[in-house]
């Protein structure tokens, strides 16, 4: 019987339909791997972009709509300004139109008439002066976490023909800045219309994040 097997003349070497099926299978397999890789990268990119958008909006909302906690944080000296004494930063005025002191009531400016979108310029100045020393702290307190996330805040009052930058907080964008997100809000500062712009981006030092 074993000899008969070796003497058998019939054999299956290769059939054309197997060859075609294998080639089709390989094409589909390669297409699947390519799709997996492509959509994985695209999803990650969209996810990072959405994260930057949400962070930027929340930070800007907190800055222009709330006076901060405590609301008189701009009165603190640079030495007293730390994570224990200042829990939240906001640029809105500390008192409402009926002179209620928000330091006492700790109310959200959004619920108090008069100072919603009305900025206290002394707070903006304080933020501007401290930003180069406390940049990491401002990042944390504004919730701008994330891998290599950086920010820049511009306050630009209306000069009659344009919004001209008067205050700058944070870092400058560079050629290595990626996924830059920009959000604008409008408010009053010293009875002058002002545009408050927050840029948030990723900076991976010249390589793709």
């Amino acid at each position, binding site marked *: 019987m074993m000899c008969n097997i070796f003497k058998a003349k*019939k054999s299956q070497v290769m059939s054309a339909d197997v060859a075609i*099926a294998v080639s089709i299978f390989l094409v589909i397999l390669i297409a699947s791997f390519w*799709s997996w890789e492509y959509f994985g990268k695209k999803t990650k990119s969209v996810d990072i972009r959405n994260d930057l958008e949400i962070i930027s909006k929340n930070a800007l909302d907190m800055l222009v709509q709330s006076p901060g906690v405590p609301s008189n944080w701009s009165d603190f000296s640079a030495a007293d300004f730390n994570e224990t004494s200042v829990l939240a930063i906001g640029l809105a005025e500390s008192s409402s139109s009926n002179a209620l002191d928000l330091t006492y009531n700790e109310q959200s400016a959004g619920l108090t008439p008069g100072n919603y*979108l009305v900025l206290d310029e002394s707070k903006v100045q304080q933020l501007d002066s401290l930003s180069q020393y406390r940049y990491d702290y401002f990042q944390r307190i504004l919730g701008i976490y994330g891998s290599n996330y950086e920010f820049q805040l511009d306050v630009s009052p209306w000069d009659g023909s344009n*919004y001209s930058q008067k205050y700058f907080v944070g870092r400058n964008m560079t050629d290595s800045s990626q996924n830059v997100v920009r*959000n*604008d809000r409008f408010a009053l500062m010293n009875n002058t219309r002002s545009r408050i712009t927050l840029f948030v981006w990723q900076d991976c030092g010249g390589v793709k994040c």
Partner: protein
Amino acid sequence: MLIKKNGYLRTLEKGKKSKNAIVFTLDAVFAIIAAAIIIFAVLFYTSQLSRTPFAKQSLSRISKDSLTVLEKDYSLKYSVQSGSYDGIQSFLDSLPTQICARIGLKDSSGALFKIINKSGCPDYSPSTDRIIHRRVFVADDASQIQHIYYAEITAWYSVDSTGGSL
């Protein structure tokens, strides 16, 4: 050239035509069609993802801020009292270039008496996604009697700025 005949592989003699043929299997055809449908469906649905999912939120915020600022700096009040709408016009014209907007002023009965459009913005089409906000303000008439007015802002993105989807 090798051909299959009676279950055996044979060499086709030169000049002779083979009567055998290789049939493309139907299950392979079905497999290709199914794979192609799945791949194209995935490509189609992922291409529908909006590139600007937060665009409407931003537009809404800027619209509300606009009315708030115009009301708080008394531009709305003074415009109605004086009949000159330059303050509102200059504010609208200073909005970001990708945003178009118009402000309509209505009296307490809801009757529209003035529309101020941002310069250089074409009118929106019925299919354009728009954001509408309203704000109440008070202005005096010639007899120093206060009246209630409504400012209504309609904002939309100019077509080229959104890539076709919001």
